[in-house]
């Protein structure tokens, strides 16, 4: 845990710590999972004890916090979106905007991948234009198609698989967000930057 309250600054420090931990290539580490308040490190507990592992990890995090500029390998993604989602008109109406304005505001800024989760390859992207923020649907859909671009609260995201979902679907992309035959399987990583490009 690097903090107790969610903020953009804390998330930056989390991503920096995760990158620093990954760069160390520490023995017995299986995976590094950043989230809002901290980083989880999964390790082989048959090979390393909790005490020795946590001492090593904390030392890396302290060094990372001490250096002011962590060169994050920033990756940017442009994602083409057809904005014809089933909830586009509902979103427009609820926000007092025209559908075209919703599209302009959704595609008019870049987003940071806060973290991955919910289902394989699903990135929580922040921050949505304040005029587009709505609570999630009262009734989640039993099946949202892979490639659906959706919004809820201050976040937007792209469903990587056909799954149940409660976000408002405003568009779709043909981009493969998750492919188990690829390594890494997810297109997005925590800390990446995403831009949406409207296409017809």
């Amino acid at each position, binding site marked *: *845990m690097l903090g107790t309250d*969610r903020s953009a600054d804390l998330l930056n420090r989390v991503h920096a710590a995760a990158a620093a931990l990954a760069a160390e290539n520490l023995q017995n580490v*299986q*995976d*590094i*999972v*950043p*989230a*809002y*308040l*901290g*980083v*989880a490190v*999964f390790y082989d*507990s*048959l090979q390393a*004890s*909790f*005490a020795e592992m946590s001492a090593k990890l904390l030392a890396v995090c302290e060094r990372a916090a001490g250096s002011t500029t962590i060169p994050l390998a920033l990756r940017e993604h442009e994602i083409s979106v057809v904005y014809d989602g089933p909830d586009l008109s509902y979103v427009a109406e609820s926000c007092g905007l025209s559908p075209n304005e919703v599209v302009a505001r959704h595609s008019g800024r870049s987003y940071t991948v806060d*973290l*991955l*989760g*919910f*289902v*394989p*390859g*699903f990135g*929580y992207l922040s921050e949505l234009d304040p005029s587009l923020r709505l609570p999630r649907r009262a009734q989640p859909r039993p099946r949202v198609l892979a490639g659906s671009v959706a919004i809820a609260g201050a976040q937007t995201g792209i469903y*990587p*698989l056909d*799954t149940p979902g409660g976000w408002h679907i405003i568009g779709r992309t043909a981009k493969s967000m*998750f492919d*188990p*035959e690829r*390594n*890494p*399987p*997810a297109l997005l*990583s*925590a800390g990446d930057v995403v831009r949406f490009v409207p296409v017809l």
Partner: protein
Amino acid sequence: MITITRAPPYLTVQDTGRKHSLSSGVPRGGAMDGFALQALNALVGNPLDTPALEWALGGGTLRFQVDCVLAFGGARARAVLGKETVSSFTTRYAKAGDQLAVEQLTSGRFLYIAFGGGIDVPPILASRSTYLPGRFGGYNGRLIAHNDTLILGARPSSTPAEGFTCPPELIPRYESAAVRITRGPHSDLFDESTWRTLTETEFVVSTASDRTGYKLTGKPVSDAAHNLPSDPSCQGAIQIPGDGAPIVLMADAPTVGGYPKMAIVAEADLPIIAQRSPGERVRFQLVTIEQSQRALKHRTSDLYTIGATGAASA
């Protein structure tokens, strides 16, 4: 080759899961009862993480088109090979043409059947486990059904003797009343009386339990709803949602979640909780991380003992 002549309602291929794709949001998955999977692999001469069948919810039959070494165990069930009843956690040799019939599971939830050479399916993200929600891994990412055929890998060079049995003292005490837990990442959000409730209540496994997680009913653990930002999760994490009914996350649980994780089930005791059926009881006993790690080492050395004793019987 093996043909499924009557499939149980749930049948998949599982190994020890995906340990390196959590950061892409891929759950670890793998066998719900990792001990049974690994012990059975030891009994057929396989490396411990070789893919095997995970079987639940009813009986079924399969037919061998090749000679093959096999062992089954985990959930209790009566199984008949040819005309002979076979015991669990025992090495058996089937001849081409033999049939293996598994009758209703009598206790426990997940039965495993390991075959010498394992089930030959392609690795996806460094594992041959089936992840049903993502429709990948294992047998084409799906449940194995009637008339499906399984190809076996190359038979191990040395296999235990017919009738070799895993020493009973090395098998987890599945009936054990207490499941060991350690303090979880949000343990400090819960006060002493809440901790007493968690460790002194006899919980009941609810019907809302599957490979994702087991919901437990009993005395509510806390009535304070904590709304936390999504946080990394893991198998064995005990989440306390707003209604106070704990949820133990299992193999296919999402990699992040927003409920506070009060405690974590000791990895060595995951098989005990995995094998509890709806309606069965469970109690938790708080131990230190060091005790939990020692228990896992112990369990793992038991697995190697089974392998070594089996090899010596060959």
